[in-house]
Protein backbone atom coordinates (compact mmCIF):
# COMPACT_ATOMS: atom_id res chain seq x y z
CA UNK A 1 0.00 0.00 0.00
CA UNK A 2 2.85 2.34 0.79
CA UNK A 3 4.66 1.67 -2.49
CA UNK A 4 1.53 2.15 -4.58
CA UNK A 5 0.84 5.62 -3.21
CA UNK A 6 4.42 6.75 -3.56
CA UNK A 7 4.60 5.96 -7.29
CA UNK A 8 1.34 7.77 -7.94
CA UNK A 9 2.73 10.87 -6.37
CA UNK A 10 5.96 10.96 -8.36
CA UNK A 11 4.41 10.76 -11.82
CA UNK A 12 2.87 14.26 -11.90
CA UNK A 13 6.25 15.74 -11.05
CA UNK A 14 8.19 13.90 -13.72
CA UNK A 15 6.14 14.85 -16.78
CA UNK A 16 6.11 18.65 -16.53
CA UNK A 17 9.86 18.64 -15.92
CA UNK A 18 10.43 16.69 -19.11
CA UNK A 19 8.15 19.01 -21.10
CA UNK A 20 9.92 22.15 -19.96
CA UNK A 21 13.33 20.79 -20.86
CA UNK A 22 12.31 20.43 -24.52
CA UNK A 23 11.75 24.20 -25.02
CA UNK A 24 14.80 26.36 -24.49
CA UNK A 25 13.09 29.63 -25.47
CA UNK A 26 15.90 30.99 -27.62
CA UNK A 27 15.99 34.52 -29.00
CA UNK A 28 18.47 36.18 -31.35
CA UNK A 29 18.58 39.82 -32.41
CA UNK A 30 18.75 39.81 -36.19
CA UNK A 31 18.63 43.57 -36.69
CA UNK A 32 18.89 46.44 -34.21
CA UNK A 33 16.33 49.24 -34.24
CA UNK A 34 17.98 51.85 -36.44
CA UNK A 35 16.49 55.32 -36.61
CA UNK A 36 18.55 56.18 -39.66
CA UNK A 37 20.57 59.27 -40.39
CA UNK A 38 18.72 62.38 -39.39
CA UNK A 39 19.28 66.11 -39.46
CA UNK A 40 17.78 68.02 -36.55
CA UNK A 41 16.68 71.22 -38.21
CA UNK A 42 14.70 72.66 -35.33
CA UNK A 43 14.47 71.47 -31.75
CA UNK A 44 12.89 74.31 -29.83
CA UNK A 45 10.07 71.90 -29.12
CA UNK A 46 10.52 68.15 -28.78
CA UNK A 47 10.73 66.33 -32.12
CA UNK A 48 10.21 62.66 -32.80
CA UNK A 49 10.67 59.91 -35.35
CA UNK A 50 8.29 56.99 -35.41
CA UNK A 51 9.51 53.71 -36.83
CA UNK A 52 6.61 51.26 -37.08
CA UNK A 53 7.28 47.54 -36.82
CA UNK A 54 7.44 46.45 -40.44
CA UNK A 55 6.82 49.99 -41.69
CA UNK A 56 8.52 53.17 -42.86
CA UNK A 57 9.94 55.79 -40.56
CA UNK A 58 8.38 59.25 -40.37
CA UNK A 59 9.53 62.27 -38.40
CA UNK A 60 8.03 65.51 -37.24
CA UNK A 61 8.83 68.71 -39.09
CA UNK A 62 11.94 69.57 -37.10
CA UNK A 63 13.79 66.48 -38.28
CA UNK A 64 14.89 65.68 -41.82
CA UNK A 65 15.56 62.08 -42.77
CA UNK A 66 18.72 61.61 -44.80
CA UNK A 67 18.72 57.83 -44.67
CA UNK A 68 15.61 56.13 -43.43
CA UNK A 69 15.62 53.80 -40.47
CA UNK A 70 15.02 50.11 -40.10
CA UNK A 71 12.87 48.38 -37.51
CA UNK A 72 14.43 45.80 -35.27
CA UNK A 73 14.09 42.09 -35.86
CA UNK A 74 14.26 39.27 -33.34
CA UNK A 75 14.12 35.59 -34.15
CA UNK A 76 12.46 33.50 -31.45
CA UNK A 77 12.86 29.76 -31.59
CA UNK A 78 12.47 26.64 -29.52
CA UNK A 79 9.27 27.91 -27.90
CA UNK A 80 6.39 25.67 -27.01
CA UNK A 81 4.13 25.94 -30.08
CA UNK A 82 1.09 25.23 -27.98
CA UNK A 83 1.63 28.13 -25.61
CA UNK A 84 0.71 31.69 -26.59
CA UNK A 85 3.34 34.35 -26.04
CA UNK A 86 3.19 38.10 -25.82
CA UNK A 87 5.95 40.68 -25.90
CA UNK A 88 6.72 43.66 -23.73
CA UNK A 89 9.65 45.97 -23.18
CA UNK A 90 11.17 45.57 -19.74
CA UNK A 91 13.45 48.58 -20.13
CA UNK A 92 14.44 51.08 -22.79
CA UNK A 93 17.09 53.49 -21.58
CA UNK A 94 17.68 56.66 -23.56
CA UNK A 95 20.11 56.72 -26.45
CA UNK A 96 23.34 58.39 -25.45
CA UNK A 97 26.13 59.94 -27.47
CA UNK A 98 29.26 62.00 -27.00
CA UNK A 99 27.49 64.80 -25.14
CA UNK A 100 24.93 65.02 -22.36
CA UNK A 101 21.96 65.16 -24.72
CA UNK A 102 19.88 62.04 -25.07
CA UNK A 103 17.03 60.65 -27.12
CA UNK A 104 14.21 58.94 -25.28
CA UNK A 105 12.82 55.74 -26.74
CA UNK A 106 9.30 54.50 -26.26
CA UNK A 107 5.97 53.49 -27.81
CA UNK A 108 7.31 50.14 -28.93
CA UNK A 109 5.23 48.20 -31.44
CA UNK A 110 5.42 44.62 -32.62
CA UNK A 111 4.60 42.76 -35.80
CA UNK A 112 2.90 40.39 -35.47
CA UNK A 113 1.02 42.42 -32.92
CA UNK A 114 1.69 40.42 -29.78
CA UNK A 115 2.22 43.44 -27.59
CA UNK A 116 -0.50 42.69 -25.08
CA UNK A 117 -2.18 39.81 -23.31
CA UNK A 118 -5.23 40.17 -25.51
CA UNK A 119 -3.25 39.68 -28.72
CA UNK A 120 -0.88 36.94 -27.66
CA UNK A 121 -0.04 34.33 -30.25
CA UNK A 122 1.37 30.84 -30.20
CA UNK A 123 4.55 30.67 -32.29
CA UNK A 124 3.93 28.29 -35.19
CA UNK A 125 6.34 25.43 -34.90
CA UNK A 126 7.82 27.16 -31.88
CA UNK A 127 9.43 29.83 -34.04
CA UNK A 128 8.52 33.45 -34.61
CA UNK A 129 10.18 36.36 -36.41
CA UNK A 130 9.27 39.46 -34.46
CA UNK A 131 9.55 42.97 -35.93
CA UNK A 132 9.98 45.73 -33.36
CA UNK A 133 9.29 49.39 -33.94
CA UNK A 134 9.63 52.35 -31.60
CA UNK A 135 9.52 56.11 -31.36
CA UNK A 136 12.56 58.29 -30.78
CA UNK A 137 12.02 61.67 -29.14
CA UNK A 138 14.39 64.58 -28.67
CA UNK A 139 14.65 66.72 -25.59
CA UNK A 140 13.24 70.15 -26.39
CA UNK A 141 15.99 72.74 -26.66
CA UNK A 142 18.81 70.22 -26.48
CA UNK A 143 21.78 70.43 -28.82
CA UNK A 144 22.93 67.18 -30.38
CA UNK A 145 26.39 66.44 -31.70
CA UNK A 146 26.90 65.11 -35.20
CA UNK A 147 27.49 61.57 -34.04
CA UNK A 148 25.80 58.26 -33.37
CA UNK A 149 23.67 57.85 -30.26
CA UNK A 150 23.29 54.30 -29.03
CA UNK A 151 21.38 52.34 -26.47
CA UNK A 152 19.94 48.96 -25.60
CA UNK A 153 16.51 47.77 -24.67
CA UNK A 154 15.22 44.67 -23.00
CA UNK A 155 12.66 42.62 -24.87
CA UNK A 156 10.58 40.42 -22.62
CA UNK A 157 8.68 37.45 -23.98
CA UNK A 158 5.92 36.35 -21.66
CA UNK A 159 4.18 33.01 -21.80
Amino acid at each position, binding site marked *: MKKYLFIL*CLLPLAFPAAARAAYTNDGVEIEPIYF*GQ*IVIVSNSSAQSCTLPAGGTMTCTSGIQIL*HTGQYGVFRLSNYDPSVAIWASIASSPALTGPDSSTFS*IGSFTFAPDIGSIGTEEAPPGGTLTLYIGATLTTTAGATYSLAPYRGTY*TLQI*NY
Partner: protein
Amino acid sequence: MNRPLLAIRRISGAAAAVLAAAVLAAGQARAGMTTYTGHDYVSVTSAITVSEADAIRFGNFAVATPGGADASIVMSDTGARTSTNGVSTTIALLNGGFSDAGSQGPGLYNVSGAGAGATLYVSFTDHTGAAITSANPVVLTGPAGSGTFDVDTLTFNQSGSDVNGPYILADAGGNAAITVGATLHTVSGVSTYAPGTYRGTFDLVLSY
Protein backbone atom coordinates in the same frame (compact mmCIF):
# COMPACT_ATOMS: atom_id res chain seq x y z
CA MET B 1 -4.61 -2.23 14.48
CA ASN B 2 -3.77 1.34 15.24
CA ARG B 3 -0.30 1.29 13.75
CA PRO B 4 -1.29 0.65 10.17
CA LEU B 5 -3.87 3.38 10.29
CA LEU B 6 -1.38 5.88 11.59
CA ALA B 7 1.10 4.90 8.95
CA ILE B 8 -1.42 5.33 6.15
CA ARG B 9 -2.38 8.78 7.34
CA ARG B 10 1.20 9.94 7.29
CA ILE B 11 1.79 8.69 3.78
CA SER B 12 -1.42 10.20 2.56
CA GLY B 13 -0.50 13.52 4.03
CA ALA B 14 2.85 13.50 2.33
CA ALA B 15 1.29 12.53 -0.97
CA ALA B 16 -1.09 15.46 -0.84
CA ALA B 17 1.75 17.84 -0.32
CA VAL B 18 3.70 16.47 -3.28
CA LEU B 19 0.70 16.66 -5.55
CA ALA B 20 0.18 20.29 -4.69
CA ALA B 21 3.79 21.02 -5.54
CA ALA B 22 3.40 19.28 -8.87
CA VAL B 23 0.39 21.37 -9.79
CA LEU B 24 2.26 24.49 -8.78
CA ALA B 25 5.23 23.58 -10.97
CA ALA B 26 3.00 22.97 -13.96
CA GLY B 27 1.34 26.33 -13.43
CA GLN B 28 4.65 28.14 -13.33
CA ALA B 29 5.72 26.60 -16.63
CA ARG B 30 2.80 28.34 -18.31
CA ALA B 31 3.39 31.75 -16.69
CA GLY B 32 7.00 32.60 -17.27
CA MET B 33 9.09 35.03 -19.22
CA THR B 34 12.37 35.29 -21.03
CA THR B 35 14.27 38.49 -21.71
CA TYR B 36 16.65 39.41 -24.50
CA THR B 37 18.82 42.46 -25.08
CA GLY B 38 18.23 44.47 -28.23
CA HIS B 39 20.10 47.45 -29.57
CA ASP B 40 18.90 50.75 -30.97
CA TYR B 41 20.72 53.71 -32.40
CA VAL B 42 20.42 56.83 -34.51
CA SER B 43 23.00 58.82 -36.42
CA VAL B 44 22.71 62.58 -36.17
CA THR B 45 24.24 64.39 -39.08
CA SER B 46 24.01 67.75 -40.77
CA ALA B 47 22.60 68.90 -44.07
CA ILE B 48 25.59 69.00 -46.39
CA THR B 49 25.74 71.49 -49.22
CA VAL B 50 27.86 71.15 -52.35
CA SER B 51 28.58 73.96 -54.76
CA GLU B 52 30.49 73.97 -58.01
CA ALA B 53 33.28 76.52 -58.01
CA ASP B 54 34.80 75.32 -61.28
CA ALA B 55 33.70 72.89 -63.97
CA ILE B 56 36.13 70.33 -65.33
CA ARG B 57 37.87 72.16 -68.18
CA PHE B 58 39.84 70.33 -70.81
CA GLY B 59 41.02 73.67 -72.19
CA ASN B 60 41.76 74.54 -75.75
CA PHE B 61 42.90 71.89 -78.17
CA ALA B 62 42.74 71.00 -81.82
CA VAL B 63 41.67 67.67 -83.28
CA ALA B 64 43.23 66.55 -86.53
CA THR B 65 41.75 63.88 -88.78
CA PRO B 66 38.76 63.03 -86.61
CA GLY B 67 36.98 59.73 -87.05
CA GLY B 68 38.87 57.55 -84.62
CA ALA B 69 37.90 56.89 -81.05
CA ASP B 70 41.42 56.49 -79.86
CA ALA B 71 42.56 60.01 -79.07
CA SER B 72 42.13 61.34 -75.57
CA ILE B 73 42.95 64.05 -73.06
CA VAL B 74 43.43 63.34 -69.39
CA MET B 75 42.74 66.21 -67.05
CA SER B 76 43.93 64.95 -63.68
CA ASP B 77 42.38 66.00 -60.41
CA THR B 78 45.70 67.66 -59.59
CA GLY B 79 45.54 69.86 -62.67
CA ALA B 80 47.90 68.08 -65.04
CA ARG B 81 46.72 67.83 -68.65
CA THR B 82 48.10 65.27 -71.07
CA SER B 83 46.96 64.03 -74.44
CA THR B 84 47.30 60.75 -76.25
CA ASN B 85 47.09 60.50 -80.00
CA GLY B 86 45.34 57.69 -81.71
CA VAL B 87 46.35 55.82 -84.81
CA SER B 88 44.52 58.21 -87.07
CA THR B 89 43.18 61.00 -84.88
CA THR B 90 45.57 63.37 -83.15
CA ILE B 91 45.08 66.05 -80.55
CA ALA B 92 47.18 69.15 -80.12
CA LEU B 93 46.93 70.88 -76.75
CA LEU B 94 46.77 74.67 -76.77
CA ASN B 95 46.92 77.37 -74.08
CA GLY B 96 48.75 75.60 -71.34
CA GLY B 97 48.48 78.16 -68.55
CA PHE B 98 45.80 78.13 -65.92
CA SER B 99 45.24 81.86 -66.42
CA ASP B 100 44.90 81.68 -70.19
CA ALA B 101 41.54 82.28 -71.77
CA GLY B 102 39.95 78.91 -72.30
CA SER B 103 42.37 77.46 -69.84
CA GLN B 104 42.16 73.94 -68.53
CA GLY B 105 41.74 72.79 -64.97
CA PRO B 106 40.09 70.22 -62.75
CA GLY B 107 36.61 70.73 -61.44
CA LEU B 108 36.33 72.17 -57.95
CA TYR B 109 33.39 71.37 -55.68
CA ASN B 110 33.13 72.87 -52.23
CA VAL B 111 31.43 70.90 -49.50
CA SER B 112 30.20 72.45 -46.27
CA GLY B 113 28.08 71.35 -43.35
CA ALA B 114 29.60 67.92 -42.88
CA GLY B 115 30.66 66.71 -39.49
CA ALA B 116 34.21 67.37 -38.36
CA GLY B 117 36.41 64.81 -40.04
CA ALA B 118 33.42 63.14 -41.66
CA THR B 119 34.04 60.47 -44.26
CA LEU B 120 32.44 61.57 -47.52
CA TYR B 121 32.15 58.93 -50.22
CA VAL B 122 32.20 60.42 -53.69
CA SER B 123 30.78 58.93 -56.86
CA PHE B 124 29.78 60.23 -60.27
CA THR B 125 26.56 59.46 -62.05
CA ASP B 126 24.30 60.64 -64.84
CA HIS B 127 20.94 62.24 -64.11
CA THR B 128 19.35 58.79 -63.72
CA GLY B 129 21.81 57.77 -61.06
CA ALA B 130 23.75 55.39 -63.32
CA ALA B 131 27.47 55.46 -62.78
CA ILE B 132 29.65 57.23 -65.31
CA THR B 133 31.67 54.60 -67.15
CA SER B 134 33.16 54.11 -70.58
CA ALA B 135 29.87 52.47 -71.53
CA ASN B 136 27.87 55.32 -70.01
CA PRO B 137 30.03 58.41 -70.55
CA VAL B 138 29.24 62.07 -70.15
CA VAL B 139 28.58 63.29 -73.68
CA LEU B 140 29.91 66.74 -74.54
CA THR B 141 27.95 68.49 -77.28
CA GLY B 142 29.06 71.55 -79.19
CA PRO B 143 28.12 73.57 -82.25
CA ALA B 144 25.24 72.31 -84.37
CA GLY B 145 26.30 69.64 -86.80
CA SER B 146 29.49 68.93 -84.97
CA GLY B 147 30.51 65.66 -83.39
CA THR B 148 30.53 64.89 -79.69
CA PHE B 149 33.18 63.90 -77.17
CA ASP B 150 32.84 61.26 -74.50
CA VAL B 151 34.10 61.84 -70.95
CA ASP B 152 34.68 59.10 -68.41
CA THR B 153 37.16 57.94 -65.76
CA LEU B 154 36.30 60.70 -63.32
CA THR B 155 38.72 60.94 -60.43
CA PHE B 156 39.01 63.12 -57.37
CA ASN B 157 41.50 64.02 -54.66
CA GLN B 158 40.50 61.10 -52.49
CA SER B 159 41.81 60.64 -48.96
CA GLY B 160 41.44 56.89 -49.17
CA SER B 161 39.20 54.04 -50.18
CA ASP B 162 37.43 51.21 -48.42
CA VAL B 163 34.71 48.69 -49.14
CA ASN B 164 32.24 51.53 -49.67
CA GLY B 165 34.42 53.19 -52.27
CA PRO B 166 36.78 56.14 -52.45
CA TYR B 167 36.27 58.93 -49.97
CA ILE B 168 37.51 62.33 -48.86
CA LEU B 169 37.67 63.43 -45.25
CA ALA B 170 36.09 66.68 -44.18
CA ASP B 171 38.27 69.04 -42.19
CA ALA B 172 37.65 70.07 -38.59
CA GLY B 173 35.14 72.64 -39.76
CA GLY B 174 33.15 70.09 -41.71
CA ASN B 175 34.33 71.40 -45.09
CA ALA B 176 36.01 69.72 -48.03
CA ALA B 177 37.26 70.87 -51.41
CA ILE B 178 36.85 68.16 -54.01
CA THR B 179 38.90 68.51 -57.16
CA VAL B 180 37.69 66.35 -60.03
CA GLY B 181 39.53 65.17 -63.08
CA ALA B 182 38.35 63.15 -66.07
CA THR B 183 39.34 61.74 -69.45
CA LEU B 184 37.97 63.06 -72.74
CA HIS B 185 37.79 60.79 -75.77
CA THR B 186 37.17 61.47 -79.41
CA VAL B 187 34.25 59.49 -80.78
CA SER B 188 34.51 56.97 -83.56
CA GLY B 189 32.87 57.95 -86.82
CA VAL B 190 32.80 61.69 -86.17
CA SER B 191 33.74 63.53 -89.35
CA THR B 192 34.18 66.99 -87.92
CA TYR B 193 34.73 68.84 -84.69
CA ALA B 194 33.76 72.42 -85.34
CA PRO B 195 35.50 75.15 -83.31
CA GLY B 196 33.44 76.05 -80.28
CA THR B 197 32.62 75.09 -76.75
CA TYR B 198 31.49 71.55 -75.90
CA ARG B 199 29.59 70.95 -72.70
CA GLY B 200 28.09 68.13 -70.72
CA THR B 201 26.84 67.50 -67.22
CA PHE B 202 27.18 64.85 -64.54
CA ASP B 203 26.12 64.45 -60.95
CA LEU B 204 28.58 64.34 -58.09
CA VAL B 205 27.10 62.16 -55.38
CA LEU B 206 28.17 62.36 -51.74
CA SER B 207 27.35 59.53 -49.38
CA TYR B 208 27.97 59.90 -45.69
